[in-house]
């Protein structure tokens, strides 16, 4: 049975001193479906990048430990090595050429050729294609998965489900494929397509191909996999036979408590007044599409929005600010709000801290004081003074305001003239908060406030947000991938799954309930399953 087994032995990886993988041990047998699960940032992608010898690994100092195939160090240093070793990957984004037929896509760069007069003179690249043999191979690969689509059809215009199968067919057509990685293969499929795919995966496994199946849908994992390995914060948590474990146990192991951010109950003044009411919100944010979200926020609350990456939680705040095409009915302070108009939204007292601090949140090549004052200047016309017929910026006032903010928020910098690009993540975030505060908002939308910030600074940022709610009566909607931080300061947490509201949880609900809900299990079921263990 140990013949041809794929093993990760003590695999670890650091990015500039920050360990993202620690001592991972895991093995995949031929013919086995091995599920890999973990929250965002648990290390799944890094592990797969190591397996494929991706440049991102080796240009950042390589990894520790070994990847072994059949007991021998495979020495995979490039994607090409991985291919030689019979390791294939079905990509999440389809890498197909629309204008080519299915056959041509499947055989791309591995065409079957025969010599011609030209090729005898000028070399192999001028050999002609053996279309019949290519079509036969393609047919064979499609048949393995029970696809009854014609192999000569153009890829352009095929439904998403079919594209996925073409992608898989290309991998299994590669001779000597021994291991196949599926990265969230069902994320874009409909239910019946998912069914077909799972069937195909089982068929592949029966033929002796070892399969690594990455998914966040617990129910699929339970149904299709033989074993499951759970990662959390770059560490191996457990590997179990799937038949010996339940979805709720997986959920609990997956979520856990990453860092101890203890919840301190605050003394917030939450009124009954609905500050923001959102109905049927749809946002076309690529990768974070919001399909239909309705929620309401009361004055003085801190509402959390959680969920896994790509489920649409980030789209909500971005949509409310009108940064992506958006549609839906939004009422703010009892008046309808045109969310497509960013300027009026800002003027009405809604401020936004983007999840993309460097890309959206800051002018990196500009000093701190301008960054802090900017929104106030452009939205409210502050910090200008009249000089003759013109209104010119009042540099003194800008500097003074920034210095006050630096003191109030404890921003560590050499002076307010320092460029924000030179600050640490935590201090950059404080600059963003300072700019939002300059607008004196009633509602603050915060996305991933602690992303890329070290643990010590995380606590400071969260405390700051909490004090804004408690001392200034600000209402906060905080979107985060980190449940621990949502649970540490929010009054209630809305879980988003597949662009819709999966349900609302209290910060004190158990880890299992959170894990299950993020995987798309309904609230009732999640509570029932979670309740059993709690008591």
């Amino acid at each position, binding site marked *: 049975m140990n013949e041809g087994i794929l093993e990760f032995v003590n695999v670890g990886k650091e990015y500039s001193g920050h360990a993202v993988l620690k001592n991972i041990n895991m093995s995949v047998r031929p013919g086995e479906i091995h599920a890999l699960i973990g929250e965002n940032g648990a290390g799944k992608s890094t592990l797969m990048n190591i397996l494929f010898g991706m440049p991102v690994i080796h240009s950042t100092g390589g990894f520790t430990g070994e990847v072994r195939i059949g007991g021998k160090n495979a020495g995979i240093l490039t994607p090409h090595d991985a291919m030689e070793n019979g390791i294939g990957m079905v990509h999440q984004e389809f890498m197909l050429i629309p204008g080519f037929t299915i056959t041509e896509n499947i055989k791309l760069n591995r065409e079957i050729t025969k010599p011609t007069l030209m090729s005898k003179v000028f070399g192999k690249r001028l050999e002609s294609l053996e279309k019949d043999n290519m079509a036969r191979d393609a047919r064979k690969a499609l048949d393995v998965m029970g696809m009854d689509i014609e192999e000569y059809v153009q890829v352009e215009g095929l439904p998403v489900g079919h594209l996925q199968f073409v992608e898989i067919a290309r991998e299994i057509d590669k001779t000597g494929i021994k291991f196949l990685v599926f990265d969230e293969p069902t994320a874009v499929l409909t239910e019946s397509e998912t069914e077909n795919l799972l069937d195909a995966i089982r068929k592949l496994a029966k033929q002796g191909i070892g399969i690594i199946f990455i998914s966040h849908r617990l129910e699929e994992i339970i149904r299709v996999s033989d074993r499951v390995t759970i990662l959390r914060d770059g560490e191996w948590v457990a590997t179990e036979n799937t038949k010996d474990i339940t979805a709720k146990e997986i959920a609990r192991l997956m979520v856990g408590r990453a860092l101890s951010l203890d919840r301190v109950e605050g003394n917030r003044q939450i009124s009954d007044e609905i500050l923001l009411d959102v109905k049927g919100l749809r946002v076309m944010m690529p990768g974070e599409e919001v399909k239909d979200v309705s929620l309401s926020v009361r004055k003085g609350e801190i509402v959390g929005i959680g969920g896994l990456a790509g489920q649409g939680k980030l789209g909500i705040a971005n949509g409310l*600010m009108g*940064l992506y095409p958006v549609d839906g009915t939004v009422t703010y302070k009892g008046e309808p709000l045109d969310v497509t*108009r*960013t*300027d*009026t*939204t*800002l*003027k009405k007292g809604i401020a*936004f801290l*983007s999840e*993309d601090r460097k*890309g*959206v*949140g*800051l*002018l*990196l*090549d*500009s000093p701190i004081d*301008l960054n802090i004052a*900017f*929104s106030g*200047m*452009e*939205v409210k*016309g502050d910090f*200008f003074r009249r000089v003759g017929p*013109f*209104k*010119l*910026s009042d540099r003194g006032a800008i500097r003074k305001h920034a210095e006050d903010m630096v003191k109030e928020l404890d921003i560590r910098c050499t002076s307010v003239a320092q460029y924000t690009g030179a600050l640490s993540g935590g201090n950059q975030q404080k600059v963003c908060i300072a700019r939002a505060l300059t607008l004196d908002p009633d509602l603050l939308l915060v996305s991933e406030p602690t992303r890329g910030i070290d643990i010590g600074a995380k606590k400071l940022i969260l405390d700051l947000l909490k004090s804004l709610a408690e001392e200034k009566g600000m209402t906060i909607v905080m979107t985060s991938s980190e449940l621990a931080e949502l649970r540490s300061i929010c009054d209630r947490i809305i879980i988003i799954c597949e662009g819709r509201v999966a349900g609302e949880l209290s910060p004190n609900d158990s880890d299992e309930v959170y894990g299950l809900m993020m995987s798309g299990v309904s609230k009732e079921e999640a509570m029932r399953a979670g309740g059993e263990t709690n008591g």
Partner: protein
Amino acid sequence: MVESVKKFINKIGIPTFAVGALLVAILIAAAALGQSIPTLLTDILKRVGMNGVLVLAMLPAIKSGTGPNFALPVGIEGGLMAMIVCMQFDFSGWALMAASAVLAIVFCSILGFLYGKLMNAVKGAEMTIATYSGFAIVAFFNILWLAIPFSNRKMGWMLGSGLRETIQLKNYQASRIISDLLAVDIAGVTIPVGVILVLLVFCGVVNLFFRTKTGYAIYAGGGNPRFAEASGLNIDRNRVIANILSTVLAGLGIILYAQGYGYVQLYNGPLNMAFPAVAAVLVGGATASKVSIANVLIGTCLFQGLMTAAMPVANQIFTGTDLSDIMRIIVQNGVILYALTKVKNGGDR
């Protein structure tokens, strides 16, 4: 010592340092060859005054994120048209200057608006499209110079219809009217105080504009469009405003240039005028996305200094040949090429 030199070079940027060093070397060579340094300096100052505003026209375009204004001829043609219209009606002297300035602002605002719209339609390929817009507008105006029935005899050919290629401003009492204003002689160097004051006033006005709300909005839109969008700004509108400003500056700049030169150059005269201006601002330490008034002034002095000083030196070394003009072309385009390769990284600032 080595550290502080490195720091200094980093601060001003390698292109600026290299061209500055070359300029110093050429001035030393000129002195060694027995050339009159005061005459050289006089020439340099003269040309700085003539070209300064054209280089300044780069600033709003770069700040708005459209990159250096390679379509400078668009504004130049607007300015020329303003002058020609005023000359047709026999304006002369200061009246000609004032009237063409006003008219240039009108013409260039319209052209700049259209050009700004074009730039918004071709985001991501601004520099290439701008270069060819510049070429295209020159061809278009070539037709206008011939087709519009201007009848003032001082501007026409001896025979036939259409405008002459170069029109003497002497006949309109406007040759060097600003350049000779308040000129001061110090130790043999003529300092054209008038034209330098005009240049500084323009710099001041542009600087003040970028301290207004609109100015900051343009700056933010160029520095980080997504940031500007999240602040509720209309980036496209701001880019149009910046390009109007740039085009107007080009139009006014060519009036200043023409009076200093003494001639109005039509037809293909403006064809390649964008490149020296772009090169100057880049030599001054600007990049395709970052620029300051200091970059404009330093760049104009260095670039024009180099152009002016290199010529007589080359002339003397290669006497009796045509090499000096070839040298000028090599030096000018070499500097442009070098500056363009540094589009992405100027000084630290």
